[in-house]
């Protein structure tokens, strides 16, 4: 009788810790997915802003068509990468877009009339902020991936992770070089 009670208690305790660990894994994975969608949202927002900015700037900058073409191309490339949904590819494409945008921003410097345009200024603040948001969303995503991967690899949650096929997520890395270039934007 005593044996049975002890056995039952053990089973219940095991079951509860099992549920708790499973829920923890699910929770962490949801945070990862959620943070990824946040990056998605911000990148898409940036794609929407770029044509507006280019249109506004074009009127003032007749001789910079090459810069605009590069930005537009980088944008198209990044958009297709996002639609595929591959983390690594998106990282590379986003880095490309970053440097193209940074170059465009540098050329704005030579057009004082453009910088006096109220519409352009507000677009520029939106773009700066959206770029920051992309960077911060990436940071938040990597934080969440780290906690999730830790849970997948570490004992005791790794047993459940193996049983229910929780796979490690990729970090969203941007190459050092472009990361350093991108924010060097002077208005």
């Amino acid at each position, binding site marked *: 009788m005593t044996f049975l009670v002890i056995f039952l208690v053990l089973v219940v305790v095991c079951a509860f810790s099992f549920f708790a660990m499973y829920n923890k894994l699910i929770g962490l994975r949801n*945070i990862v997915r959620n*943070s990824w969608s*946040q990056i998605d949202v*911000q990148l898409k927002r940036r794609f929407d802003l770029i044509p507006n900015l280019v249109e506004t700037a074009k009127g003032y900058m007749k001789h910079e068509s090459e810069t605009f073409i590069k930005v537009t191309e980088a944008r198209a490339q990044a958009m297709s990468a996002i639609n595929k949904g591959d983390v690594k590819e998106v990282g590379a494409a986003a880095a490309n877009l970053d440097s193209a945008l940074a170059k465009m921003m540098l050329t704005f410097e030579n057009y004082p009339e453009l910088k006096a345009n109220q519409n352009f200024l*507000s677009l520029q*603040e*939106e773009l*700066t*902020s959206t770029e*920051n*948001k992309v*960077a*911060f*969303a990436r*940071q*938040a995503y*990597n*934080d*969440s991936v*780290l*906690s999730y991967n*830790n849970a997948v690899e570490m004992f005791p949650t790794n047993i459940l992770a193996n049983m229910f096929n929780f796979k490690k997520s990729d970090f969203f890395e941007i190459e*050092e070089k472009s*990361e*350093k270039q991108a*924010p*060097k*934007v*002077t*208005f």
Partner: protein
Amino acid sequence: MWELIRINKRKSLFVLILMFILMVSLSGAVGAGFYTVDWVTGMIWGALIGVVLWAVQAAVAYFAGDDIVLHFNMAVVVTPESYPQLYNIVEEMKIASGLQVMPEIYIVQSSGLNAFATGIRREKTAICVTSGLVENLTRDELQGVIAHEMSHIMNRDVLFMTFAGVMLGTITMLSNVMLKGTVFANSENKRSRKKGGFSGGHPAVIIVVLLFAVIAPVLARIFYFTISKKREYLADASAARLTRYPIGLASALQKIAKHSSIDFVSKITAPMFIVNPQFAADEDSLFSASTHPPVYKRIAILTQLQHGGKVSLETYQRIYEKELEASGLFSKTTLETDKSEAVRAESAEKISESRKDLADVILANAGFKIATCECGLKIKLPPSDLRMKVVCPRCRKEISVSGSNAAPVGNGEDGLVFKRKNVNSWESFPCQCGRFTFQLSPLFRGTSVVCRHCRTKVRIEYPE
């Protein structure tokens, strides 16, 4: 980062429980001292009353604290339309911190530079900045400040500091009751030469209780300021980690330290500000009654972090330990789950011209009318000023005031006309001279009114 929150909670909870025990035993002691018949019963009742006292105050703070703070400060809500940049910065930090709920943003009209966070409940958080802050900081600096406040929200500091603050208040109050009660009871006894009141208890109990009443508030204060100071460093570390730009916060702190004083702070809200608005900036002693660590130390740590090139909680802790010769801030698990990030480059945006108009936006929101003269002077009229025309004090020109609150009097073909909207209720409108308000009663059916001061005639029109 995610682990961090949980562990901080646990540590603070420990100190909070210590404070709670202190409070319960003090109120028990007070009960034992006052109830002369049986000190055990007195103790139980005292403890109960103490807990109820605290619970009531804590409940008020929990359910209405945020609103009380914001209402007293006459804070104005910021929307993405009214002030896009500030809204953007807050949104950026919300994304970086991984918070689910976007905090509300408020601006308070004050030339002092400061900011604070409220948010006792997770669903309803707010960040409040002074207009002086927004006008004087660059984008990077503002981002640092917002990140610091966001960290307070993330770590749930507001909740802990409010509960701890209320506890500190209760303990101080109980000890006051105790000490004053003793003095009062003793002087009464001398006069009436009769035993009773407080000193009726057992002498040993009284001595213990009195001693306790003196020590408890001091202890509580030490507990309180220990949590509070540590949480400032924690918020600084998380802010540096969120923005990846520690020098932004450092230079903001430098600016803020010079002008942090504002006039709407209470003792309980003080820990939530980025720099303590009540005390001088560089107080530095163990028993100093400051909720914030000395600003120059915070700046020194952040600056060194920036020069290191990599931002992580671990590097912050290393510099903190070196700088303060104190033990660590974070637990081992927190550091294991933290990722180091490279310091980002400075963003080029300096203080934009549009920020200079911020004060006007706030005033307009509060019902002020703004008249701009040709000479460039801006005249701001409070809502109570009903003049439609003002004379510029610089160039003596007459300017007409337009604004939402201007008198609803139109210019008809034959002079001024006021159109009544509802004949069945009182209606009032100001005269253009601003010194007289016409009041039309529901019974009034006249065709015109005349101002008592400037003798201007206004025709009254009625709806069909």
